[in-house]
């Protein structure tokens, strides 16, 4: 029998475990306390009828999920989440790249310009959002002043369910634009100059050069920004809370905001955590899809 051999192998594999644990624990403890345990706890709570206040609660099985999937508000929020995520992701990536392309060549004042464009990213979202509530004011807000000056009719912005989502998206894109730009700037600088020379001699136009050389060379950055922006959009809360509180009439209620309302306003923690679990699955699912798709278009 090979038992002793297996044992020895087992021993060899695990005899360093205490040492490894010693080094990993300082990082592992906060991860367990603040991340892994709460996730597990949330999943558990999603099968209960806890009301956030009572010390006791009952396990209700899949009831929370069933009522969630029967609730039109949930699908409305899911739709808003998709619109918000796509609405922030695409403009952030595209405009971030455009800004980076404009600023990649240094000119007088380009440093200051980069800093100004990046500054919203390092400013707290709550502060930004408060300023934007003034900008969006229907009477005398800068947004409407500009629209009127351009000859367009003023909008109701965050006060109307037609434009509230657009308003929140504009704030979010404006905030993350500089971040995308900084990443694209460094990616563009890393594309070897010789490639542009080779492609020029091969006869490519500017557009072809951009699509055939620049875009593929910076594709890892695009991929990274897509994942980060997507996760940020799924987790957006501050700007929605300050600007619209999910309204008017639920038009800016995303899944995360619905979670907040269910758990902390309606005290239905069981159903709130069920939404959270759906969100986790959604995030994981979207990330897996992106990673799979990236094998086709990301060139390392």
């Amino acid at each position, binding site marked *: 029998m090979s038992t002793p051999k297996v044992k020895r192998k087992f021993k060899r594999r695990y005899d360093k475990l205490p040492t490894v644990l010693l080094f990993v624990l300082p990082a592992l403890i906060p991860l367990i306390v603040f991340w892994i345990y709460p996730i597990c706890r949330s999943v558990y709570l999603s099968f209960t009828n806890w009301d956030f206040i009572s010390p006791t609660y009952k396990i209700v099985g899949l009831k929370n999920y069933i009522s969630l999937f029967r609730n039109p508000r949930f699908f409305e929020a899911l739709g808003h989440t998709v619109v918000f995520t796509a609405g922030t992701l695409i403009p952030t990536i595209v405009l971030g790249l455009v800004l980076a392309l404009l600023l990649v060549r240094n000119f007088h004042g380009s440093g200051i310009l980069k800093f100004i464009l990046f500054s919203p990213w390092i400013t707290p979202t709550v502060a930004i959002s408060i300023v934007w509530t003034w900008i969006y004011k229907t009477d005398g807000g800068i947004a409407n002043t500009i629209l009127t000056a351009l000859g367009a009719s003023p909008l109701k912005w965050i006060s109307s369910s037609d434009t509230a989502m657009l308003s929140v998206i504009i704030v979010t894109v404006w905030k993350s634009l500089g971040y995308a730009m900084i990443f694209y700037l460094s990616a563009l600088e890393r594309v*070897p100059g*010789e*490639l542009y*020379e*080779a*492609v*020029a*001699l*091969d*006869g*490519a136009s500017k557009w*072809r050069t951009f699509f*055939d*050389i620049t875009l*593929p*060379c910076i*594709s890892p950055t695009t991929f990274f920004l897509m994942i980060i922006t997507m996760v940020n959009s799924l987790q957006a809360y501050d700007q929605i809370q300050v600007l619209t509180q999910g309204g008017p009439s639920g038009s800016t209620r995303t899944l995360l905001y619905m979670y907040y309302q269910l758990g902390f306003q309606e005290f239905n923690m069981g159903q709130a955590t069920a939404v959270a679990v759906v969100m986790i699955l959604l995030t994981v699912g979207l990330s897996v899809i992106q990673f799979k798709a990236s094998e086709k278009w990301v*060139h390392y």
Partner: protein
Amino acid sequence: MAEIILKNITKEYENGFQAVKNVSLDIKDNEFVILVGPSGCGKSTTLRMIAGLEDISDGDLFIDGERMNDVAPQHRDIAMVFQNYALYPHMSVYQNIAYSLKIKKIPKSEIDQRVHEVAKSLGLEELLDRKPGQLSGGQKQRVAMGRAIIRHPKAFLMDEPLSNLDAKLRGQMRVEIADLYQRLNTTFIYVTHDQTEAMTLGTKIVVMKDGEIQQIDNPTNLFSYPVNKFVAGFIGTPTMNFFEAECAEENGLVVLKTVAGRIVMNDAKAAKLREGGWIGKKVTGGIRPEHVILSQDGENTVFSGKVNVFELLGSNAIIYVETEAGMIVMNTSQVQVYEHGDKIALSVIADKVHVFDPETERTVTN
């Protein structure tokens, strides 16, 4: 196939630095021209101006009689092989080679046929599906050449194409480039700082220094008749020995007097020295290591000294001799082993001596 003419071309950067000064060069159809010189001599800049990758500050560039100064690189019909190959990292070998044809919207079937032809001629058929990251240096080099060949351009420009390869591969690729030139029969312009590459590949060599052309000639003439001390020292390994001497006339013969002896000039050289009024003046002498010989009797001794380093290379040996006139290097095929410190007397083949003006460094005996 193209005739390329550079007329008084100058490259001046914004900070006033002149990388290329007033360079004029006639490149005939099917010539293999080498631009050679130490780093910073302007050879790469000259090549890049021909390609259109650098603006020409002053002067005219003609390709097949047409002025090209303001023509974009893609409209010059010139292919270039870069020092770091510049392969498109996200494209397969096939796509890299096919790219320029794809841009020209050539039918797929023709592209396919031409790519396979080129791949076959360069031994790349097995690698067509690979990405550049999966290739060795030599293979990348071949892909870079394939990308150039497939276009059937008017001229090939190569910017130090072998400098990233190891010595053995460099030798091998050098032969392949020579073979390619024979097969393609078109104009090649090749930049290198390696004089072996220059001497073995070129039909015409342009030696440059500090942005100026020093000499344009074929390899044989460049080696035998350098126009100045720089060219004489740059071409040939080990480099030419230089020594101080005095030009004098003794018994009707023109001689170069060195510290330890004298070299009798042949009639042609004597005439040049007399014409130039060099009799009685100080000159710089030059002799290649392979033209330094052992002095058989005391009469012919030009230099005497002690062996410093003895390098046996197999069929020949290089001996570094510390003499009164400085270090003199001898490259001899009569292999006789010397120890450090051995006394040795050297002579030279008088016909092979070069004489330079010590001030202008120009050759006075050509």
